[in-house]
C-alpha cells in the first residue's frame, strides 16, 4: 500500500473504449469504503455494490441473479480452488476475490462477474476509477 494515502489506494487508469469516453459517474468517497465490506450506492438510477479489496475497487450490479436479492450485507473472501486431480487439497488466490451473496451464499468472481457455482450466471460488473479521493463508476461498461 502507498504510504500517506488513506486505505492505501492508488489512482486507477481510466480506460478508453473506441472513440467514446466512458460515462464515469461519481459514486462515493473512497474514504467511506472498508476493505472487504460491500457498500451499495445508487448511480444513475441503478443500485451498484462497490467493494474494496486489496488495493482495487470492484463494482457490480446490486442484484443476485439467483433470486434477485440485494447484495447488501454480502462479504468478500479470496477465491478458493483445487488443482484438477488435487482431491483433498485447497489453494487460495487473493487476487481473485469472490463476493458471497448474503442470502443463499452463492459466490461471484469479482473480477469477471462469473458465478462460481453456476456457469450460466454472471453479474454485471463495471469499470471503476479513482480521482481526488472519489470513486467513479463507468456505467457504460
Amino acid at each position, binding site marked *: 500500500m502507498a504510504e500517506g494515502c488513506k486505505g492505501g489506494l492508488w489512482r486507477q487508469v481510466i480506460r478508453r473504449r473506441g472513440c467514446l469516453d466512458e460515462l464515469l459517474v461519481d459514486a462515493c468517497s473512497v474514504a467511506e469504503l472498508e476493505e472487504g465490506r460491500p457498500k451499495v450506492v445508487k448511480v444513475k438510477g441503478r443500485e451498484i455494490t462497490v467493494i474494496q479489496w486489496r488495493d482495487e475497487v470492484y463494482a457490480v450490479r446490486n442484484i443476485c441473479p439467483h433470486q434477485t436479492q440485494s447484495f447488501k450485507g454480502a462479504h468478500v473472501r479470496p477465491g*478458493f480452488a483445487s488443482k*484438477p*486431480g488435487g*482431491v483433498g*487439497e485447497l489453494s487460495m488466490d487473493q487476487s481473485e476475490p469472490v463476493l458471497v451473496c448474503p442470502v443463499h451464499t*452463492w459466490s461471484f468472481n469479482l473480477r469477471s462477474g462469473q458465478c462460481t*457455482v453456476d456457469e450460466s450466471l454472471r453479474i454485471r460488473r463495471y469499470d471503476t476509477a479513482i480521482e481526488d479521493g472519489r470513486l467513479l463508476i463507468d456505467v457504460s461498461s
Partner: protein
Amino acid sequence: MTDSARPSDVARSAIDSGIFHEWSSTLTLTPYMEPAWRELVTRKGDRGGPLRLATNWLYRNPMHGNKAADSYPAQGIPGSDREMLAKRPGDRLVLGYDEGLLATGFAYHYLSRAAVRAANDWTIDQWLGHDPRFYGLVLVSTGMPEEAAAEIRRVGTHERMVGIALGANGLGLPFGHPAYHPIYKAASELKLPIVIQVGSDAMTDMIVPPMAGGLATTYAEYKVLGGQPSMTHAVSLITEGVFDNHPDLRVLMLGCGVAWLPGFLWRLDWWWKTNKLEAPWMQMPASEYFLRNMRITTYGFEWPREPERLIRALKTIPKIEDLLLYASGWPNADFEDPDGVAARLPETWRDKVMHGNAQAFFRWPATASTGGPTKRKLSSESR
C-alpha cells in the same frame, strides 16, 4: 418362465445386470481355500459343522423368505443350481450375489477375505467357463480396502469378470471416504465398473443402520427404505473426489430404487452450490458426475399401481433412459422378467435399458464393444 415358452426378442437380447449365483455351503468354497483356512473353516468333527462364512441380514421376508417360490432347486439354495440359472432369459447374465454378499460383511475380516478369494476362484472355475452367457463380478471384502484392491488385481484380469461387487460397508463409512479409495484405484486400473447393492448396510455386523431415523420394524419398510445408504454413498463418491481421481470409473446402484432420483439430483446440486468449498476439487456440478458416472437398475423400481406415473416423474431428467439398466433380481421373490419390464418402458427406451446401457457399462471381453462414459448436464438444454 418355463422351458417350453419361446423367448421373445426382448428376452433373448436382454443383458441381465443383476442375477444372483450363490454357494450352498461353505464346503462349496473350501476346495478353493489355502489348507490352513480350509481346515479352520471345515471343522471336521466339530459339532457345529462347517463355519458359515456369512453375517446375517437384518431383515428377511416373512411371507416366503426372500426367494421366488419356483427358484428352489432339488438341492442347495436358490441361485446355486447352474442349470436353473442357465435357463434364465437374456443374452448375457452378469452373475452377482445376494446371499453371497453376506460373506463380505463377516466380522472376522481375514476370514472374510479368504471367503471372497475362494468365491472368486470358484466362480471362475465352476461358472464362467460353463455357459457363454455367464459373466462374473469380482467379490471383495471392503473391511480392508487394500486387500480388496489386491483381490481386484488378482482376479479382475480374467476376461469374463466384467465388474466388481462392492458388498458390505465394511468400515461403516460412506463409500466415497478416502479409506475406500484404494478399491477405486484398482478398479480404475483394470477398467472394471463397480456395483453397489441394496443391503450393503443391512447386515447384522454393520455398525451403520440401513435406514434413517432408527431401525424399521417390517421387511416391507426395508424394501422401501433400503436404498437410503446408497443415496449417501452416491453423494459421497461424487463429493469426495472418486470421479475426479477416476473420471472413467462407473458405478451401478442395484436394487436401490429410482423414484427418489429427480429430487435427489436437484437437491444435490443445490447443496453442492452452497457447500462448494467443502469439495473444491469438483470440476462440474454434482449432478453431472451422477449422470456421467452412475447408473441404476430397473430391479428395485418403485412401480406405482399405474406404472406410467413413475415414467412421467423420471422423464424430468434429460435422457434418463441412458442411466437405467435392466436387472432381473432373480432368484429374489420380487424378480422381474425382461418382457414385463420392457412392456412398462417407453418404446424409445427399450433397447438402451434392456441391452445398450449394460453393453456400455461393464468391461466385456475384447470381442464386445464398450464406450467410455460421456459428460452430460442435468438441464434439458444439453439435449
